[in-house]
Protein backbone atom coordinates (compact mmCIF):
# COMPACT_ATOMS: atom_id res chain seq x y z
CA UNK A 1 0.00 0.00 0.00
CA UNK A 2 1.07 3.60 -0.53
CA UNK A 3 2.55 5.59 2.30
CA UNK A 4 0.63 8.28 4.10
CA UNK A 5 2.52 11.00 2.21
CA UNK A 6 1.67 9.51 -1.15
CA UNK A 7 -2.00 9.21 -0.22
CA UNK A 8 -1.97 12.80 0.97
CA UNK A 9 -0.45 14.02 -2.27
CA UNK A 10 -2.89 12.08 -4.39
CA UNK A 11 -5.91 13.28 -2.42
CA UNK A 12 -4.76 16.88 -2.62
CA UNK A 13 -4.22 16.50 -6.36
CA UNK A 14 -7.58 14.87 -6.96
CA UNK A 15 -9.67 17.10 -4.73
CA UNK A 16 -8.77 20.73 -5.24
CA UNK A 17 -9.13 22.87 -2.16
CA UNK A 18 -8.50 20.02 0.27
CA UNK A 19 -5.58 20.52 2.62
CA UNK A 20 -4.51 17.61 4.76
CA UNK A 21 -2.08 17.50 7.63
CA UNK A 22 -0.15 14.45 8.72
CA UNK A 23 -0.03 13.55 12.39
CA UNK A 24 1.85 10.37 13.09
CA UNK A 25 0.27 7.75 10.88
CA UNK A 26 -2.97 9.58 10.31
CA UNK A 27 -4.33 12.24 8.01
CA UNK A 28 -6.09 15.19 9.60
CA UNK A 29 -8.93 16.48 7.51
CA UNK A 30 -11.14 19.47 8.15
CA UNK A 31 -14.86 19.21 8.67
CA UNK A 32 -15.92 20.53 5.29
CA UNK A 33 -13.95 17.99 3.32
CA UNK A 34 -14.34 14.86 5.42
CA UNK A 35 -17.03 13.40 3.19
CA UNK A 36 -15.10 14.14 0.01
CA UNK A 37 -11.98 12.51 1.32
CA UNK A 38 -13.91 9.48 2.58
CA UNK A 39 -15.59 9.14 -0.81
CA UNK A 40 -12.24 9.37 -2.53
CA UNK A 41 -10.81 6.64 -0.30
CA UNK A 42 -13.78 4.44 -1.10
CA UNK A 43 -13.92 4.93 -4.84
CA UNK A 44 -10.25 5.25 -5.69
CA UNK A 45 -9.23 2.12 -7.57
CA UNK A 46 -5.78 2.04 -6.02
CA UNK A 47 -6.93 2.30 -2.43
CA UNK A 48 -10.47 0.84 -2.56
CA UNK A 49 -11.07 1.45 1.12
CA UNK A 50 -14.50 -0.11 1.22
CA UNK A 51 -14.63 -0.96 4.89
CA UNK A 52 -14.58 1.41 7.84
CA UNK A 53 -13.44 -0.73 10.68
CA UNK A 54 -13.24 1.53 13.65
CA UNK A 55 -14.67 4.89 14.58
CA UNK A 56 -13.52 6.30 17.85
CA UNK A 57 -14.38 9.62 19.46
CA UNK A 58 -12.06 11.39 21.85
CA UNK A 59 -12.27 14.33 24.17
CA UNK A 60 -9.40 16.78 24.49
CA UNK A 61 -9.66 19.31 27.26
CA UNK A 62 -8.08 22.74 26.77
CA UNK A 63 -4.37 22.35 27.35
CA UNK A 64 -1.09 24.19 27.19
CA UNK A 65 1.89 23.15 25.15
CA UNK A 66 5.29 24.43 26.16
CA UNK A 67 7.95 24.52 23.48
CA UNK A 68 11.32 26.18 23.21
CA UNK A 69 11.83 28.45 20.29
CA UNK A 70 15.01 30.48 19.96
CA UNK A 71 15.92 30.02 23.65
CA UNK A 72 12.56 31.33 24.74
CA UNK A 73 9.85 29.24 26.28
CA UNK A 74 6.68 29.61 24.25
CA UNK A 75 3.38 28.61 25.79
CA UNK A 76 0.59 27.92 23.38
CA UNK A 77 -2.97 27.46 24.53
CA UNK A 78 -4.77 24.67 22.72
CA UNK A 79 -8.53 25.01 22.74
CA UNK A 80 -10.51 21.98 23.82
CA UNK A 81 -12.10 19.94 21.10
CA UNK A 82 -13.65 16.59 20.29
CA UNK A 83 -11.98 14.37 17.78
CA UNK A 84 -13.10 11.39 15.74
CA UNK A 85 -10.67 8.82 14.37
CA UNK A 86 -11.64 6.60 11.45
CA UNK A 87 -9.74 3.46 10.47
CA UNK A 88 -10.33 2.42 6.88
CA UNK A 89 -9.40 -0.94 5.45
CA UNK A 90 -9.89 -2.59 2.11
CA UNK A 91 -11.49 -6.00 1.89
CA UNK A 92 -10.91 -6.16 -1.86
CA UNK A 93 -7.19 -5.38 -1.77
CA UNK A 94 -6.69 -6.67 1.77
CA UNK A 95 -4.64 -3.71 2.88
CA UNK A 96 -4.92 -0.88 5.29
CA UNK A 97 -5.35 0.95 7.48
CA UNK A 98 -5.72 4.53 6.39
CA UNK A 99 -6.44 6.60 9.42
CA UNK A 100 -8.42 9.84 9.19
CA UNK A 101 -8.91 12.33 11.97
CA UNK A 102 -11.48 15.04 12.10
CA UNK A 103 -11.93 17.61 14.83
CA UNK A 104 -14.84 19.67 16.03
CA UNK A 105 -14.75 23.33 16.79
CA UNK A 106 -14.76 23.60 20.57
CA UNK A 107 -16.39 21.15 22.90
CA UNK A 108 -19.28 23.14 24.36
CA UNK A 109 -22.77 21.76 23.80
CA UNK A 110 -23.01 19.33 20.93
CA UNK A 111 -20.50 20.35 18.25
CA UNK A 112 -21.10 18.89 14.83
CA UNK A 113 -19.23 16.81 12.27
CA UNK A 114 -20.41 15.42 8.95
CA UNK A 115 -21.70 11.87 9.10
CA UNK A 116 -20.15 9.21 6.88
CA UNK A 117 -23.09 6.84 7.36
CA UNK A 118 -24.51 7.58 3.89
CA UNK A 119 -21.24 6.27 2.47
CA UNK A 120 -20.52 3.51 4.99
CA UNK A 121 -23.39 1.82 6.77
CA UNK A 122 -20.90 0.38 9.23
CA UNK A 123 -20.50 3.79 10.84
CA UNK A 124 -24.19 4.02 11.77
CA UNK A 125 -24.08 2.54 15.26
CA UNK A 126 -20.60 3.81 15.97
CA UNK A 127 -21.62 7.38 15.24
CA UNK A 128 -24.67 6.97 17.42
CA UNK A 129 -22.39 5.76 20.18
CA UNK A 130 -20.11 8.78 19.74
CA UNK A 131 -23.15 11.03 19.91
CA UNK A 132 -24.42 9.31 23.01
CA UNK A 133 -21.21 9.28 25.00
CA UNK A 134 -19.41 12.39 23.69
CA UNK A 135 -22.16 14.58 22.33
CA UNK A 136 -20.88 14.91 18.76
CA UNK A 137 -23.75 15.73 16.43
CA UNK A 138 -23.25 13.97 13.11
CA UNK A 139 -24.91 16.00 10.38
CA UNK A 140 -26.62 13.80 7.83
CA UNK A 141 -26.98 10.75 10.05
CA UNK A 142 -30.33 9.09 9.29
CA UNK A 143 -31.23 8.19 12.84
CA UNK A 144 -29.16 10.03 15.41
CA UNK A 145 -30.46 9.03 18.83
CA UNK A 146 -28.88 7.87 22.03
CA UNK A 147 -27.95 4.24 21.71
CA UNK A 148 -26.53 3.10 25.03
CA UNK A 149 -28.05 5.44 27.59
CA UNK A 150 -31.74 6.17 27.88
CA UNK A 151 -33.32 8.95 25.89
CA UNK A 152 -33.94 11.37 28.75
CA UNK A 153 -30.30 11.30 29.85
CA UNK A 154 -28.74 14.74 29.70
CA UNK A 155 -25.00 14.26 30.20
CA UNK A 156 -22.28 12.97 27.92
CA UNK A 157 -20.65 10.53 30.26
CA UNK A 158 -17.41 9.75 28.43
CA UNK A 159 -16.26 13.35 28.41
CA UNK A 160 -13.32 13.96 30.65
CA UNK A 161 -15.13 16.48 32.82
CA UNK A 162 -18.14 14.30 33.54
CA UNK A 163 -18.96 13.68 37.21
CA UNK A 164 -21.14 10.67 38.02
CA UNK A 165 -24.03 11.01 40.48
CA UNK A 166 -23.22 10.46 44.13
CA UNK A 167 -24.38 7.07 45.40
CA UNK A 168 -21.55 6.06 47.66
CA UNK A 169 -23.50 5.16 50.80
CA UNK A 170 -21.83 1.80 51.39
CA UNK A 171 -18.23 1.72 50.26
CA UNK A 172 -16.16 -0.34 52.67
CA UNK A 173 -12.95 -0.13 50.65
CA UNK A 174 -12.86 3.34 49.12
CA UNK A 175 -9.91 5.16 47.60
CA UNK A 176 -9.02 8.55 46.21
CA UNK A 177 -12.04 10.33 44.78
CA UNK A 178 -14.43 7.67 45.97
CA UNK A 179 -13.06 8.02 49.48
CA UNK A 180 -13.80 11.75 49.45
CA UNK A 181 -17.29 11.07 48.15
CA UNK A 182 -17.90 8.31 50.67
CA UNK A 183 -16.77 10.39 53.62
CA UNK A 184 -19.71 12.69 53.02
CA UNK A 185 -21.96 9.79 53.98
CA UNK A 186 -20.03 8.80 57.09
CA UNK A 187 -20.86 8.22 59.86
CA UNK A 188 -24.39 9.49 59.41
CA UNK A 189 -26.76 7.13 57.60
CA UNK A 190 -27.63 8.29 54.12
CA UNK A 191 -30.45 10.78 53.76
CA UNK A 192 -33.69 9.19 52.68
CA UNK A 193 -34.11 9.75 48.95
CA UNK A 194 -37.06 11.80 47.85
CA UNK A 195 -39.80 9.74 46.33
CA UNK A 196 -41.18 10.96 43.01
CA UNK A 197 -44.68 12.27 43.13
Amino acid sequence: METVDQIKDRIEAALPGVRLAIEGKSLVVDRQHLLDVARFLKTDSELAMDYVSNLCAMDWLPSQIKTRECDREVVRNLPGHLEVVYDFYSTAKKHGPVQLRCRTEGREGTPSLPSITPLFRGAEFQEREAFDLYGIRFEGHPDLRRILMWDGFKDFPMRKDYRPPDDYEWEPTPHDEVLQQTKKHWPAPPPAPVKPA
Partner: protein
Amino acid sequence: MLGNGMIQGLLVTARNLLRSYFDPECLTTIQYPEERRTLPENSRCFPFLVYDGTPDNLRCVACKICEQECPPQCIYIEVERDAKTGKPVRRPRVFDIDYSVCMQCQICAEVCPFDAIKMDQIYELSGTDRFGGMLMNKGALLKSNEYYHQMHPTEANEVDARLSQSKKKASPPAAKPAAAPITLQSAPPPRPTPSAPPSPSVPPTPPVPPKSDV
Protein backbone atom coordinates in the same frame (compact mmCIF):
# COMPACT_ATOMS: atom_id res chain seq x y z
CA MET B 1 -35.73 -39.13 1.62
CA LEU B 2 -37.68 -36.70 3.70
CA GLY B 3 -37.13 -37.34 7.35
CA ASN B 4 -33.78 -38.98 6.87
CA GLY B 5 -31.97 -36.14 8.59
CA MET B 6 -34.31 -36.28 11.55
CA ILE B 7 -33.80 -40.02 11.92
CA GLN B 8 -30.05 -39.43 11.85
CA GLY B 9 -30.43 -36.91 14.66
CA LEU B 10 -32.58 -39.23 16.72
CA LEU B 11 -29.99 -41.97 16.30
CA VAL B 12 -27.39 -39.66 17.81
CA THR B 13 -29.49 -38.99 20.88
CA ALA B 14 -30.35 -42.68 21.19
CA ARG B 15 -26.69 -43.60 20.99
CA ASN B 16 -25.86 -41.10 23.71
CA LEU B 17 -28.63 -42.44 25.90
CA LEU B 18 -27.58 -46.06 25.48
CA ARG B 19 -23.90 -45.35 25.88
CA SER B 20 -24.54 -43.74 29.23
CA TYR B 21 -25.39 -47.19 30.60
CA PHE B 22 -22.00 -48.64 29.63
CA ASP B 23 -19.54 -45.80 29.19
CA PRO B 24 -18.64 -43.89 32.34
CA GLU B 25 -17.44 -41.04 30.13
CA CYS B 26 -21.01 -40.35 29.17
CA LEU B 27 -22.01 -39.84 32.78
CA THR B 28 -20.86 -36.27 32.98
CA THR B 29 -22.90 -35.12 35.93
CA ILE B 30 -21.12 -34.41 39.20
CA GLN B 31 -23.38 -35.18 42.14
CA TYR B 32 -22.36 -31.89 43.65
CA PRO B 33 -22.89 -31.62 47.39
CA GLU B 34 -21.81 -35.23 47.94
CA GLU B 35 -19.19 -35.40 45.23
CA ARG B 36 -16.85 -32.56 44.33
CA ARG B 37 -14.55 -32.11 41.42
CA THR B 38 -10.93 -31.81 42.48
CA LEU B 39 -9.95 -28.38 41.35
CA PRO B 40 -6.78 -28.00 39.32
CA GLU B 41 -3.85 -26.73 41.27
CA ASN B 42 -3.91 -23.36 39.56
CA SER B 43 -7.57 -22.80 40.24
CA ARG B 44 -8.34 -19.60 42.08
CA CYS B 45 -11.22 -18.02 43.88
CA PHE B 46 -10.62 -15.28 46.43
CA PRO B 47 -7.47 -13.82 47.95
CA PHE B 48 -6.27 -14.56 51.47
CA LEU B 49 -3.29 -13.54 53.58
CA VAL B 50 -0.50 -16.00 54.34
CA TYR B 51 1.17 -16.22 57.72
CA ASP B 52 4.16 -18.30 58.76
CA GLY B 53 3.75 -20.30 61.94
CA THR B 54 1.50 -18.14 64.09
CA PRO B 55 -1.09 -15.62 62.92
CA ASP B 56 1.01 -12.81 64.41
CA ASN B 57 3.78 -13.62 61.99
CA LEU B 58 2.06 -12.55 58.81
CA ARG B 59 4.02 -11.82 55.69
CA CYS B 60 2.17 -8.65 54.74
CA VAL B 61 4.13 -5.47 55.43
CA ALA B 62 1.30 -3.08 54.48
CA CYS B 63 3.15 -1.70 51.46
CA LYS B 64 -0.22 -1.07 49.80
CA ILE B 65 0.88 -2.24 46.36
CA CYS B 66 -2.05 -4.63 46.06
CA GLU B 67 -4.38 -1.86 47.16
CA GLN B 68 -3.15 0.38 44.35
CA GLU B 69 -3.12 -2.32 41.69
CA CYS B 70 -6.44 -3.99 42.53
CA PRO B 71 -8.57 -3.27 39.45
CA PRO B 72 -11.96 -3.02 41.22
CA GLN B 73 -10.35 -1.33 44.25
CA CYS B 74 -11.71 -3.79 46.79
CA ILE B 75 -8.73 -3.84 49.17
CA TYR B 76 -8.40 -1.40 52.03
CA ILE B 77 -5.25 -1.22 54.15
CA GLU B 78 -4.25 0.90 57.08
CA VAL B 79 -0.73 0.75 58.42
CA GLU B 80 -0.12 -0.18 62.03
CA ARG B 81 1.49 2.54 64.14
CA ASP B 82 3.69 2.01 67.11
CA ALA B 83 1.76 2.69 70.31
CA LYS B 84 4.56 4.67 71.94
CA THR B 85 6.32 6.49 69.17
CA GLY B 86 3.52 6.72 66.62
CA LYS B 87 5.83 5.67 63.83
CA PRO B 88 4.47 3.33 61.18
CA VAL B 89 5.26 -0.33 61.72
CA ARG B 90 5.61 -2.72 58.80
CA ARG B 91 2.34 -4.57 59.29
CA PRO B 92 -1.29 -3.77 58.56
CA ARG B 93 -3.65 -2.60 61.26
CA VAL B 94 -6.67 -2.90 58.99
CA PHE B 95 -6.72 -5.22 56.01
CA ASP B 96 -10.15 -5.50 54.46
CA ILE B 97 -11.15 -7.19 51.24
CA ASP B 98 -14.68 -6.71 50.03
CA TYR B 99 -15.57 -10.12 48.60
CA SER B 100 -18.76 -8.68 47.20
CA VAL B 101 -16.66 -6.59 44.81
CA CYS B 102 -13.61 -8.81 44.22
CA MET B 103 -13.36 -10.03 40.64
CA GLN B 104 -10.93 -12.90 41.34
CA CYS B 105 -8.39 -11.61 38.87
CA GLN B 106 -5.29 -12.62 40.85
CA ILE B 107 -3.52 -9.33 40.18
CA CYS B 108 -3.03 -8.68 43.91
CA ALA B 109 -1.24 -12.02 44.27
CA GLU B 110 0.75 -11.32 41.15
CA VAL B 111 2.11 -7.93 42.14
CA CYS B 112 2.80 -8.67 45.81
CA PRO B 113 6.60 -8.62 46.24
CA PHE B 114 6.40 -10.36 49.63
CA ASP B 115 4.27 -13.35 48.56
CA ALA B 116 1.89 -12.35 51.31
CA ILE B 117 -1.43 -12.50 49.45
CA LYS B 118 -2.48 -15.64 47.62
CA MET B 119 -5.57 -17.08 46.01
CA ASP B 120 -7.89 -19.38 47.91
CA GLN B 121 -10.02 -22.14 46.43
CA ILE B 122 -13.13 -21.86 48.57
CA TYR B 123 -16.15 -20.97 46.51
CA GLU B 124 -19.03 -21.92 48.80
CA LEU B 125 -19.44 -18.48 50.28
CA SER B 126 -23.11 -17.81 49.70
CA GLY B 127 -24.70 -16.06 52.61
CA THR B 128 -27.63 -13.96 53.58
CA ASP B 129 -25.69 -11.12 55.17
CA ARG B 130 -24.91 -8.45 52.64
CA PHE B 131 -23.02 -5.90 54.67
CA GLY B 132 -20.98 -7.77 57.25
CA GLY B 133 -20.71 -11.18 55.66
CA MET B 134 -19.06 -10.15 52.45
CA LEU B 135 -16.52 -7.80 53.99
CA MET B 136 -13.53 -9.84 55.08
CA ASN B 137 -11.29 -8.34 57.70
CA LYS B 138 -7.76 -9.31 58.62
CA GLY B 139 -8.79 -12.02 61.04
CA ALA B 140 -10.93 -13.78 58.49
CA LEU B 141 -8.35 -13.48 55.75
CA LEU B 142 -5.38 -14.90 57.61
CA LYS B 143 -4.52 -18.48 56.73
CA SER B 144 -1.42 -20.51 57.40
CA ASN B 145 1.34 -21.34 55.02
CA GLU B 146 0.51 -25.04 55.48
CA TYR B 147 -2.96 -24.38 54.18
CA TYR B 148 -1.42 -22.67 51.18
CA HIS B 149 0.84 -25.68 50.67
CA GLN B 150 -2.12 -28.03 50.62
CA MET B 151 -3.86 -25.98 48.00
CA HIS B 152 -1.08 -25.00 45.60
CA PRO B 153 1.82 -27.35 46.41
CA THR B 154 4.08 -26.57 43.46
CA GLU B 155 3.65 -22.84 43.68
CA ALA B 156 4.04 -22.80 47.45
CA ASN B 157 7.31 -24.72 47.30
CA GLU B 158 8.67 -22.22 44.80
CA VAL B 159 7.60 -19.37 47.03
CA ASP B 160 9.22 -20.92 50.08
CA ALA B 161 12.47 -21.50 48.26
CA ARG B 162 12.47 -17.91 47.07
CA LEU B 163 11.68 -16.52 50.51
CA SER B 164 14.32 -18.55 52.32
CA GLN B 165 16.88 -17.46 49.77
CA SER B 166 16.09 -13.79 50.18
CA LYS B 167 16.13 -14.18 53.94
CA LYS B 168 19.56 -15.80 53.81
CA LYS B 169 20.81 -12.89 51.79
CA ALA B 170 19.34 -10.33 54.16
CA SER B 171 20.45 -11.71 57.52
CA PRO B 172 22.03 -15.15 57.46
CA PRO B 173 22.29 -15.96 61.18
CA ALA B 174 19.06 -14.49 62.49
CA ALA B 175 16.81 -15.84 59.77
CA LYS B 176 13.90 -17.86 61.03
CA PRO B 177 13.36 -21.23 59.43
CA ALA B 178 10.75 -21.20 56.72
CA ALA B 179 7.34 -22.53 57.58
CA ALA B 180 7.92 -26.26 56.96
CA PRO B 181 8.13 -26.96 53.30
CA ILE B 182 10.64 -29.79 53.55
CA THR B 183 8.40 -32.42 55.01
CA LEU B 184 5.64 -31.58 52.58
CA GLN B 185 7.84 -32.04 49.57
CA SER B 186 8.45 -35.68 50.37
CA ALA B 187 4.83 -36.63 50.95
CA PRO B 188 2.28 -34.19 49.61
CA PRO B 189 -0.87 -34.21 51.75
CA PRO B 190 -4.23 -35.02 50.17
CA ARG B 191 -5.85 -32.11 48.37
CA PRO B 192 -8.25 -30.27 50.64
CA THR B 193 -11.93 -30.45 50.01
CA PRO B 194 -12.72 -26.83 49.46
CA SER B 195 -15.47 -26.62 52.04
CA ALA B 196 -13.79 -27.06 55.36
CA PRO B 197 -12.28 -23.64 56.21
CA PRO B 198 -14.27 -20.86 57.84
CA SER B 199 -17.25 -19.70 55.91
CA PRO B 200 -18.42 -16.12 56.04
CA SER B 201 -21.77 -17.04 57.52
CA VAL B 202 -19.84 -17.34 60.75
CA PRO B 203 -19.27 -13.79 61.94
CA PRO B 204 -15.69 -12.84 61.10
CA THR B 205 -13.38 -12.94 64.02
CA PRO B 206 -12.18 -9.56 65.19
CA PRO B 207 -8.75 -8.61 63.96
CA VAL B 208 -5.93 -10.01 66.00
CA PRO B 209 -4.60 -7.27 68.27
CA PRO B 210 -1.13 -6.63 66.93
CA LYS B 211 1.79 -6.66 69.27
CA SER B 212 3.71 -3.47 69.62
CA ASP B 213 7.09 -5.12 70.02
CA VAL B 214 7.63 -5.84 66.33
